[in-house]
């Protein structure tokens, strides 16, 4: 009898569990299903909870709930989200962080299933891909408010498909104290930079901390040199376009510049030992004063200063062989696009309109200080740590070569990996560039 009672109780619990598990409660409908309603439902003032596109606001008004995905954490857009809450009160932006390593895969899958986010943060390469597949709505009218430098990488077939976010850039952080104490002047050319590094070596100070376990440092450093020497010149200006159209190759074009740049290796500034050091460890070396320089961007500034609040740092640009304002590697941080199949396109557009104002850009910039806005008339004060690159930024010398590679932009990782092999003496420059060309060709022919 006792056993029967227990089994009846267990069965009842299972049935209750199944029923409640299969049911849809109001909180679930509120939180997740943002795309299930029709467009008209999305703009109607009255909707049922199960439609999922509406949320009853605290003041009793209805809110359209939209989803926005980004590969950076919510902290990097916190001020912007707060601003949107005030500026667009009838729209609730649900922020969704997706880790960078899975971002494209997750978003691609959602978009192909027509369940993508309403607002998508896009890289130039993914924006181009999604535009070609018809996943993105054109934003030409809002795009006109931004400079061409920002919108060109998000344009396809004469239309703009994403609005450029706050720019990112990477230069060379340097320890001001070490430069001043040893009376070393900032270099203005590549040869001077090599001389500065050698001087630090003579003083038994590591000139440059680099986490070459990652493929990124040599990619950016060498490309900055090629930018200064070739891509920024009249001769090289069209290289990006020619390359993505399959009319040019790296091998045969970039060789001489990289041969010169490889003095970074032959002079012992980049060493094979560095392949055993990762980014965080290199940052630690710089922050603790064991190295004089470290290549990175604004995203690392807080970490560096928190590790050593007494460290006096500034940033210098990358240089070519001729004296100039220098160059930084960088571009639009992310492009903000609208999903063509979104049921809440109007609400998404309202959000993009709010971002496309000086106030909106300021809110966006607040958590990305150091970068600049591409919106006409939006200019912000540069933090002190970037005094030495003020001229570079003012000259607009911020460029990201692989942003021009179109559908093959992802091959920049291959470039960095091949440069690691070059550093380790496994291949020459020509072979390195041929391998990258092969990958680019494969991606472009996809």
């Amino acid at each position, binding site marked *: 009898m006792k056993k029967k009672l227990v089994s009846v109780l267990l069965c009842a619990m299972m049935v209750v569990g199944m029923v409640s598990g299969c049911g849809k409660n109001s909180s679930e409908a509120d939180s997740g299903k943002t795309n299930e309603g029709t467009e008209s439902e999305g703009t109607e003032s009255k909707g049922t909870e199960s439609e999922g596109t509406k949320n009853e606001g605290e003041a009793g008004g209805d809110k359209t709930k939209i989803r926005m995905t980004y590969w950076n954490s919510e902290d990097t857009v916190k001020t912007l989200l707060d601003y949107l809450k005030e500026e667009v009160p009838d729209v609730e932006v649900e922020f969704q962080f997706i880790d960078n390593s899975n971002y494209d895969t997750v978003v691609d899958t959602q978009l192909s299933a027509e369940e993508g986010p309403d607002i998508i943060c896009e890289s130039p390469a993914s924006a181009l891909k999604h535009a070609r597949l018809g996943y993105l709505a054109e934003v030409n009218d809002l795009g006109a408010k931004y400079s061409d430098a920002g919108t060109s990488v998000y344009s396809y077939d004469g239309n703009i498909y994403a609005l450029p976010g706050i720019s990112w850039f990477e230069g060379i952080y340097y320890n001001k104290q070490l430069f001043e104490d040893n009376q070393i002047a900032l270099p203005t050319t590549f040869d001077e930079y090599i001389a500065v590094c050698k001087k630090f070596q003579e003083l038994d100070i590591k000139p440059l901390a680099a986490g070459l376990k990652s493929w990124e440092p040599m990619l950016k450093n060498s490309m900055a040199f090629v930018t200064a020497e070739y891509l920024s010149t009249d001769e090289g200006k069209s290289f990006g376009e020619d390359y993505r159209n399959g009319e040019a190759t790296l091998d045969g074009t970039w060789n001489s510049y990289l041969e010169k740049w490889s003095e970074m290796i032959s002079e012992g500034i980049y060493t094979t*030992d560095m392949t*055993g050091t990762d980014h965080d460890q290199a940052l630690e070396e710089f922050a603790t004063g064991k190295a004089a320089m470290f290549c990175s961007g604004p995203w690392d500034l807080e970490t560096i200063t928190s590790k050593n609040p007494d460290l006096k740092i500034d940033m210098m640009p990358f240089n070519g062989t001729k004296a100039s304002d220098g160059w930084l590697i960088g571009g639009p941080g992310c492009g903000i696009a609208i999903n063509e199949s979104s049921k809440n396109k109007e609400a998404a557009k309202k959000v993009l309109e709010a971002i496309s104002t000086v106030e909106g850009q300021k809110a966006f910039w607040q958590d990305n200080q150091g970068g600049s806005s591409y919106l006409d008339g939006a200019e912000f004060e540069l933090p002190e740590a970037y005094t030495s690159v003020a001229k570079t930024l003012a000259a607009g010398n911020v460029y990201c070569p692989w942003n021009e590679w179109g559908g093959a932009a992802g091959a920049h990782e291959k470039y960095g990996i091949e440069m690691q092999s070059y550093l380790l003496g496994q291949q020459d420059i020509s072979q390195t560039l041929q391998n990258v060309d092969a990958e680019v060709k494969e991606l472009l022919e996809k």
Partner: protein
Amino acid sequence: MTKKRKLRPGELGKYFMIFILPALVIYLIFSIAPFLYTIFYSFTDYTDMNPVNLHFVGLKNYFKVFETPLMLTAIENSVIYAILLTGFQTVLGLPLAVILNKKLKTRNLLRAVFFFPAVFSSLIIGYLWNFIMSSSDFGLINNLLHQLGMDTVNFFTSDNALYSVVLTQIWQWTGWGMVIYLANLQSISPDLYEAADIDGATGIQKFFRVTLPLMCPSVKIIVVTGLIGGMKVFDIIYSMTSGGPGDATQTVMMVMMKKGISDGFYSTGSAFGVCFFVIVLLISAVVTKLMGKWSEAIQ
């Protein structure tokens, strides 16, 4: 008092079927169906740029797999990794188990200590060893070598990186092998050792003539699971080297993730997956056959 009806042979089968059904359905949906889809996609031109209008392309994707140096490097590295890890795990785990099967005062403590690394995720172990093996001033090993006035070692050159990863995994998984061996050891009857003692066998003779032959089942488990798991290695490579420097530590799973998913070459990734399945199947079949022969020889 009611008389219980006698069950006819095979009558219970239908009940067993009902119990098996949920697991079978889950297996079919989450394993068999995706695998069949993978085979199907491997004969198409499915990419992220062409997700809908698929065309039959024959063996094109399979030829591409064997023409891509990165994929061949990945297969080679995975095989080296699997063989080295399984070999060392098998060879080192057995004597360790034999020693810790003896009546030592610290036996339980030592067993726990050796098994402890296997409790952690390989990702955590990877990040930990990353710091231990770092060539920066903060690397534990190199710091010690430096303090002793010796030359530092770069564990992550293209020649060393794969072996450095293997080393950490031997450290992590030998204890797991030891536990499997211990379970087997404790099932060996002490009578056999007594008989061997009466025959005047030495300790080494007892190990090779009594212990080792009877350890066949556990060796089989460790070798087969070690080889298959080793071929599928991903997390430790991801956390320690991300496949670098260059392509020195690329493995099948790393390349499948990169090419097959991130780069959007879904059909090529599928073909690579099918090839990998065949390779693992062949290795498993050969190992099982060899272990079976060993088993027969003992009997």
